[in-house]
């Protein structure tokens, strides 16, 4: 295992200290329990978005804390969901009286811990709503599984719901918009290489030099199937075939196309994949109206990419374009 670290057991704490120092103008960090909150929280009268999950997906979620997006993020150990006490403390710290929306990626661990937290936070008198993100089309019918995973759609949902909260929508309205984003977004990912969790030191899976993993998750867990490495055009077509037919997306739809890197795939490959996706969607008459390309929801140093497609309406577009000021996404301010 080759990493720039001091001690596998302190990676998250040290990285968090770095984030706090690098973005002191944006973020406050609490260590016991661990959460990141926007420096101006609580914002009175504004719904507060609280998300979280295992670490190792940076910039998700901490990089999205700030005006127009998340009020707080709760980082767990690497690839391990946070614990309820973190979520409760974060909710208490950022609740501006308008309630807290918990944004949870659909993994058993995250769901169970946030469920426990929600129960206890409500007991503390905090108004809580929860949205569970499950946009990963690689996972089959949920009667046979824990259900679809929350992946790239989470980034778009946090931005759009954050803008709704910033414009003053109440908890029910923000939760409704978040739920609607989850209904309109689909994603799928692939990996060329595994990643290595620091405290384990072992690659999360092994691939031959000519193999890739399609439908991979964001925790280095193996995906839907292992196939021979093919061209970028074929990779993108495989991902988009599943995405487009699932919603389904149809000719004339206006979309936001998000090409995401798993952490170790260079920008040149991501823009190349984005170009393949544009050609694919153009052939289907699907319009790309907004775009995001880069490493936003990652799996440590995994090589690979995921594609997320969101069906836009005017409200989503307006909320996407609204100002945001976080460490990882910033515009309009």
């Amino acid at each position, binding site marked *: 295992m080759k990493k720039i670290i001091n001690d596998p057991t302190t990676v998250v704490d040290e990285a968090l200290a770095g984030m706090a120092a690098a973005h002191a103008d944006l973020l406050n960090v609490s260590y016991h*329990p661990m959460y990141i909150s926007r420096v101006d929280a609580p914002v009175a009268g504004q719904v507060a978005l609280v998300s979280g999950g*295992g670490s190792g997906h940076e910039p998700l979620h901490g990089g999205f804390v700030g005006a127009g997006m998340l009020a707080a993020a709760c980082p*767990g*150990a*690497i*690839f*391990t*969901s*946070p*614990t*309820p*006490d973190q979520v409760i403390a974060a909710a208490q710290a950022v609740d501006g009286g308008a309630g807290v929306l918990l944004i949870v990626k659909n*993994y*058993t*661990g995250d769901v*169970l*811990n946030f*469920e*426990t937290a929600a129960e206890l936070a409500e007991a503390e008198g905090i108004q809580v709503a929860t949205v569970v993100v499950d946009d990963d089309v*690689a*996972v*089959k019918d949920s009667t*046979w*599984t*824990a259900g679809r*995973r929350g992946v790239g759609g989470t980034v778009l949902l946090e931005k759009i719901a954050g803008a709704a909260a910033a414009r003053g929508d109440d908890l029910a309205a923000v939760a409704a918009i978040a739920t609607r984003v989850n209904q309109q977004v689909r994603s799928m990912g692939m990996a060329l290489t595994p990643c290595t*969790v620091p*405290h*384990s030191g*072992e690659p*999360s*899976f092994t691939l031959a030099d000519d193999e890739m993993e399609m439908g991979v*998750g964001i*925790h*280095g*867990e*193996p*995906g*839907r199937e292992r196939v021979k490495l093919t061209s970028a055009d074929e990779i993108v077509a495989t991902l988009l075939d599943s995405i487009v037919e699932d919603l389904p997306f149809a000719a004339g739809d206006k979309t936001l196309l998000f090409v995401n890197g798993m952490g170790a795939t260079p920008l040149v490959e991501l823009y190349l994949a984005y170009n393949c996706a544009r050609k694919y969607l153009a052939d289907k008459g699907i319009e790309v109206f907004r775009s995001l390309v880069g490493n936003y929801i990652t799996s440590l140093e995994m090589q690979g990419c995921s594609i997320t497609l969101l069906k836009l309406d005017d409200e989503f577009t307006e909320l996407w374009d609204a100002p945001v000021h976080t460490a990882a996404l910033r515009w309009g301010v």
Partner: protein
Amino acid sequence: MTCTAETTVAAIKAVAATIAEHKAELSHLDREIGDGDHGENLAKGFTAVVAKLAANSPATPGAVLKLVATTLISTVGGASGPLFGTAFLRAATACADAPTLDAEQVAIALKAAVDGVVARGKAEIGDKTMVDALIPAADAARNAADAGGSIADVLTAAAKAGESGRVDTIALQARKGRASYLGERSIGHVDPGATSVTYLLQTLATSAAEG
């Protein structure tokens, strides 16, 4: 012998040692069909439990189990954190403030713990989770108690049944938890959570026999 706060603390410390010893193995199993952190998650939690038990000395078995529960909930994370936490919490509630427990109470506490895991995780027998070890374990404990067995007999029976339920998970396709994402590729691997709960039961059994 009967189960007191002291023997419960001793048993929990023994469990912490077992988990630490098998940490790498549990994470390895989790790498096969999950995300490779099960051993670390539990080891982190039980290390915290041991620290808590060093600083506090709860008066009853139930109070010990409650301290274990809250500590695991706030330190483990992942799926197993709330599940182990709920199990110990329900067991604690079942024990109420009884100063000591007999075999019957132990069987009841174990059943309560298992019901709690099922209630939280909504997994059924055959979903390839810790439940596949826990349900047979609780049933076996009940039978052993009905047969008038000692606490050691009850826990030994539970551990045996848990072990065979654990082995049965190898042939199963996961329908809950991370492993379910693998579909058929989850078949042929033993479930990490079923393994950790079996280690837990075995350790409780031995420390009851020794104690």
